[in-house]
């Protein structure tokens, strides 16, 4: 799996190029719309809230998440154990993003949106969910550092590499 990972990541990038290409070809360049009363504030553009754009956004967002998780697995390397946590974390991450997208579709239709911890539901998914979901990876890193990232054996190997290099450089000089 790890040997094919770079090719998989390349495939993801090509797909993102296609999605972005569609957006750039189909969309129009529209200037920021100034608030009618306060010039330094912007107001929203209904064209950016169309269903087709929302779907394109969901596809792009999921691609980004899969790309991010794949890069993390690339960084972890072949030898680290417990990589299933990345699959689990990725699924949670994508689920949170999907929940954000789905609730956002309903949000604009509500007269009096529900607030969760002071923010509308989709915004709460963004602020609390999208920020927190990836922390599973950082927790894995911190808790499993000595088992998965830098073992005592790794340190010994590394010291040997550094010592050999210094001995060679001293010998050459």
């Amino acid at each position, binding site marked *: 799996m790890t040997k094919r990972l770079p090719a998989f990541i390349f495939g993801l990038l090509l797909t993102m190029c296609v999605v972005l290409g569609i957006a750039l070809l189909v*969309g129009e*360049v529209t200037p920021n719309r100034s608030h009618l009363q306060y010039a330094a504030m912007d107001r929203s553009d209904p064209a950016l809230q169309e269903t087709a754009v929302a779907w394109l956004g969901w596809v792009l967002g999921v691609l980004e998440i899969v790309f991010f998780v794949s890069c993390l697995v690339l960084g972890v390397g072949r030898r680290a154990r417990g990589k299933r946590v990345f699959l689990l974390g990725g699924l949670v991450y994508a689920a949170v993003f999907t929940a954000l997208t789905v609730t956002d579709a309903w949000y604009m239709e509500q007269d009096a949106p529900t607030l969760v911890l002071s923010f509308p539901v989709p915004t709460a998914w963004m602020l609390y969910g999208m920020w927190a979901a990836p922390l599973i*990876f950082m927790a894995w890193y911190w808790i499993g550092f000595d088992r998965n990232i830098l073992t005592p054996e790794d340190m010994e190997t590394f010291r040997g590499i550094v010592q050999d290099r210094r001995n060679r450089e001293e010998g050459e000089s």
Partner: protein
Amino acid sequence: MEGARNTIVLVCVGLYMVICIIVGVWALRRTRSSRDFFMAGRDLGVFVTGIAVFSSTLSGFGFVGGPGLVYRMGMSSIWMVVCTGIGFSFSAILLAKRLRLFAEVCDPVSLPDVVAVRYRSESARFMTAIAILLGVIGYLAAQIKAMATVLQDIVSRNSAIGDLSLATCVVISCAVLVFYCVTGGIIASVYTDLFQGLVMIVAAILVFFTAMHAFPGGFASMSETIMADDPAAMGPWGTLGVLGCLSWYFLFSLGGTGQPHIITKMMMNKRVRDARNIIPVSFLGYGLSALLWISIGLVMRALVLQGTHPSLDNPDQAAPQFLQTYAHPILSGVVFAGLFAAIMSTADGFLNIAAAAIVHDIPRAIWGKSLKRELLWARTATVATAVVAAAFCLMYDDLVALLGAFGWGTFAVALVPVVAIGFNWKRATALAANVSMAVGLVTIFTLKLGGINLPYHIDGGAVALVLSLTVFFGISLFSKPPKLDPDVEKVMEI
């Protein structure tokens, strides 16, 4: 005390400037070589490094530009904050250990030094140095603009001094910055990072609670006020829209691993094993400090919509005017001092890496050796870089945050593939590194300097990053596997 508000703020800012100068003089005595000037002797502890990493990340861009963008666009720019969960995970897993291991093997003075050894390529070193210089100009211009904007706002309220032009404020800001940078180098940068990082955390928490109480009903009421005016502004995509926000999310999530002024610091910690704790310390610090970004932007938009506060002429005024109007005078003074501290220590990091690129990396790439009297030339290059960046900031009328986004994007498109990916993937080639940097930089500069806006407010930096990553992976996959330095290859196995 309210009558003396402006005086208190000026005193706090002045006191901070004096502390900077003192640290600069102290660091001058410890800076005896270009290695001290650029790498601080690789002797820093976890806490110092962790706080330095986060405070380099959050700067004028976050303290002035961020609230300005929230004021202008609603929740759109919060994607630049929300990305820190995944962004710091990238820094931890892709870089923290890897960079520190390389630092011990390569004994570098700069990031291009490490790139040159990893790819066995002086052209890759050269391209990296050029990318750093180009990114520094844009990003440093944003810092200088932030400083000058805030200084102008503070000074204009003091009748004894009166109005000063933005250009005059740029000159005053740069004078202190350059003195501090020239004398202290990276040692001064890191230790002021520590001080201002702690100030930022304390200030941000206090500002958060102040903002909550500045608007009757707190954040829930602010949300309702903003939603009543424009529901989309409080939605997850703000007024920018879904594709614009996701392009920022992509650029800012990955981009942290390509910011040389941040990642260089990951090579300076004393022990390799410190890599475990540095990033979590940074993440916590950043998370607390980002409260200021979110709270000031939202409360100012709500206050203006409510009619309580006059409309702003420029969104970048959101933070200074909030502090001048609603914060306790002493808190205001502390936060302004912290704000200058944040800007200056990040700017110091930029000047330091630009000086390394000019006097160390480019001469090595072209002539195979560094300049004689490298420390003297480093100080000269520091001054020259500040002058060019100051001129750039006056030429471009962009908001602080948008100038910063351009600078961030320039670093990201060049260095994310080469460093974050290439340091973890043995198959990555020097050709891929060079071509991806060229493609990324040409794309982002064409879009920015050509004034080309993209549909759906998609950020040009994100498009450039996708392109440079695609080129990097594509060329590497279809090229012959490179022959690495044997020690580098063994280190990449760890």
